[in-house]
């Protein structure tokens, strides 16, 4: 365990009252922060100070605080989730920063994610993409035994690699085009790989990519920023797979 000496940091934080008024950066000081504080715990401390001073605390999305719900969403020093490999903001710890650092904190910025307040954005567009086809059309009940259709381990593993997506939207925030290709391709690939999802693969990929465009997401121009930003390490090979599925679907 590293030592417990405390740090003082300067935060430059995006504040915006709501979607209709312009936002701006405000400067705050974070005091008495240890290396074991998580990034969000550091913000909690700043907020406690703001409340004590009669000021409005910074609002940000967060929930599980263990890196799986996908709720937290901040761009830190220009990098979605702070740029630590495969780490959400809530799992980012202050040991990655030094005493005296200045930290810029912004919301996800993308056309399809309007700002709600401060660091909170509206990510309903990601739900819309899933609603367009991110499922198998099975009914509750009336399905075969779980072992009736064998799935070789490598296929199950690759499908799981894709299924690890937490839907946080960092891929969109990281993409210069604001594209949701990595997000969409992860679901398309998971279900296309598995025999249970194969039957609807063609309609699924068409409908989900159409929803993606309608929601205002941009296109992919192979920057790979999405993969760099993804806290679950989802691989861009799934975008290639989605493109293949998309082309196949044109002939299906």
């Amino acid at each position, binding site marked *: *365990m590293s030592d417990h000496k405390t740090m003082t940091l300067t935060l430059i934080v995006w504040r915006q009252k709501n979607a209709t008024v312009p936002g701006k950066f405000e400067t705050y000081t974070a005091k008495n922060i240890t290396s074991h504080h998580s990034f969000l715990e550091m913000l909690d401390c700043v907020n406690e100070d703001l409340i004590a001073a009669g000021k409005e605390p910074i609002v940000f999305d967060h929930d599980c605080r263990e890196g*799986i719900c996908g709720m937290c969403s901040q761009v830190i020093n220009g990098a979605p989730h702070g740029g630590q490999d495969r780490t959400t903001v809530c799992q980012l*710890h202050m040991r990655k920063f030094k005493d005296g650092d200045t930290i810029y904190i912004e919301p996800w910025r993308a056309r399809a994610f309007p700002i709600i307040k401060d660091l909170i954005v509206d990510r309903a567009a990601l739900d819309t993409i899933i609603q367009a086809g*991110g499922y198998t059309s099975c009914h509750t009940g009336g399905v075969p035994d779980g072992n009736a259709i064998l799935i070789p381990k490598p296929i*199950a593993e690759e499908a799981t690699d894709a299924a690890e997506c937490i839907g946080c939207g960092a891929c969109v925030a990281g993409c210069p085009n604001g594209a949701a290709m990595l997000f969409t391709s992860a679901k398309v690939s998971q279900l296309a790989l598995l025999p249970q999802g194969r039957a609807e693969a063609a309609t699924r990929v068409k409908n989900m990519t159409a929803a993606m465009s309608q929601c205002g997401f941009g296109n992919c121009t192979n920057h790979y920023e999405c993969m760099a930003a993804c806290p679950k390490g989802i691989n861009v090979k799934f975008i290639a797979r989605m493109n293949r599925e998309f082309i196949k679907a044109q002939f299906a």
Partner: protein
Amino acid sequence: MILDGKCPTGPIEKTWDKHRFDLKLVNPANKRKYNIIMVGTGLAGGAAAASLGELGYNVQAFCYQDSPRRAHSIAAQGGINAAKNYPSDGDSILRLMYDTIKGGDFRAREHDVWRLAQVSNNIIDQCVAQGVPFARDYAGYLDNRSFGGAQVSRTFYSRGLTGQQLLLGAYSALSRQIKAGTVKMHTRREMLDLVVVDGVARGITVRNLVTGEIETHAADAVCLASGGYVNVFYLSTNAKGCSVTANWSAAKKGAFFANPCYTQIHPTCIPQAGEYQSKLTLMSESLRNDGRIWVPKNKADIGKLPADVPEADRDYYLERKYPSFGNLAPRDIASRNAKEACDNGLGVGPGGRGVYLDFADSIKRLSEDTIRERYGNLFEMYEKITDENGYKRPMRIYPAPHYAMGGLWVDYNLMSNIPGLFVLGEANFSVHGANRLGASALMQGLSDGYFVIPYTIGGYLVTVKPGDVKNDHPEFKKSVEDVKARTNKFLNINGKKTITEFHRELGKVMWNDVGMARSKESLTDAIKKIPAIREEFWQNVKVTGSGAELNQQLEGAGRVADFLEFGELLAKDALHREESCGGHFRVEHQLPDGEAKRNDADFSYVGAWEFKGNDKEPELHKEPLKFETIHLAVRSYK
């Protein structure tokens, strides 16, 4: 009042099938005339909303997060139990039922548990059909792992992400219904009141967390699938938004709260590092399959590097005390033993609140790669939080509040004592008794959601006329006024302390006095302290901002205010239950070897509390428990 669970009679093997046949059906053409409200869209609520929508009902679903995909079910790591008996190691529906009843220390209702075990197999099939990528072997068959409290391998899993994969399965089924128009999803809404008209649940009042608008929604039935309440301890493994608010609002309208003192303290969590800490992180107890738990035998070895403590000077206390279950002893036993070791001054890490979970032997036996394949994400998570490498040195773990076995009282149909109010998943009390076994929460959530409520709710709906009460009824108006008045009260106190300070203060009382070991003295003390904190809260809390905007302080104020009332009830339930059972451990009631000592003669019942206001004593209603299939016995894991 003596409560009746309305369980079916006859041989247990036939009860659920017979009951399903006996339930009246709603004509397919009539289903669309019924509105059903679903509060919470985790495993139970998401599965239920999807299944009910598919059946043809109109479902209005609500969650406080920005998407149903984020419910805290997502954080369950280890797995889901089912009685498939694929490994042919002696499993059966009856054995799963037996293990669950025994694991729950004989405080659950047999019929509900039988049903759970019976439908467990359907759940696996359902999830596979949805494209949930369970772990498979090279031949393509589903793989199983072992879990605490069982001697068979019946746990299905997907890496350390089982909850996420199952939730995303339910979310995908729900998304399909949202697209089809049978489910209307309301995200970023928090239920603040249950609307009861002439004794029947008719709707809810919610706050739109973005605009601050107070909305009412009427329906023919209201389902709560709003999760558990262990954030009453402040530090827990729950998500920050988890609260008792939806359940408590129903309790304040007359729904009985059953067994609130049955709380589970999970043994394998990362120890607290400092005061500022906002939550505790759990690591799946599946780690106990390959990790060995120990503390140094001698206090002199506490500060040493674990590798420097010789084998002979380590106490593998679970293996020593429970040779047949060893490190896989049930959660309550594993947690209490860790506390005991630390209380005896043998704990390791900051504040001496930790024990080692050591993988060295397994790595030697199986290779580091195998361990990485099984638990890689957990080791990664541990390293991110503690800055320590679990492959190179033992992890440090300590128990943390994790799950609420207690919840709103429901009958066999999952209906509360308020007609038209159904409660699913962790929010109800039904199947886990006084202690839940690992990999059983996911099973219960999906069982209630996919395979129980779609049948049982029909039996109620046929008795009501659809759309009988609309949200222009005076009770809805009154509910909105009440909610607005409370909101204004929070905003106008303008005191000195933040909601977090109050929540922490309550949490400390709950953890110290109502935590892993409870006594008459500590509980009496808590029952004095909690109202004092509550009183100060209403005088001195500071809530910034306004009610007409996104305001996280205001959201938190409501949740903490409810915990300050509910915590007292929890302590009172714990005080009244003069026995130890499962997660409820009273130091006055223990066997000479420190094991929980049940009192079946006096306490073999469900304790369901009727809340009558903060200034009045709650009234206890009892539902006697009968054990006809599994015989009452002293729980032994030795």
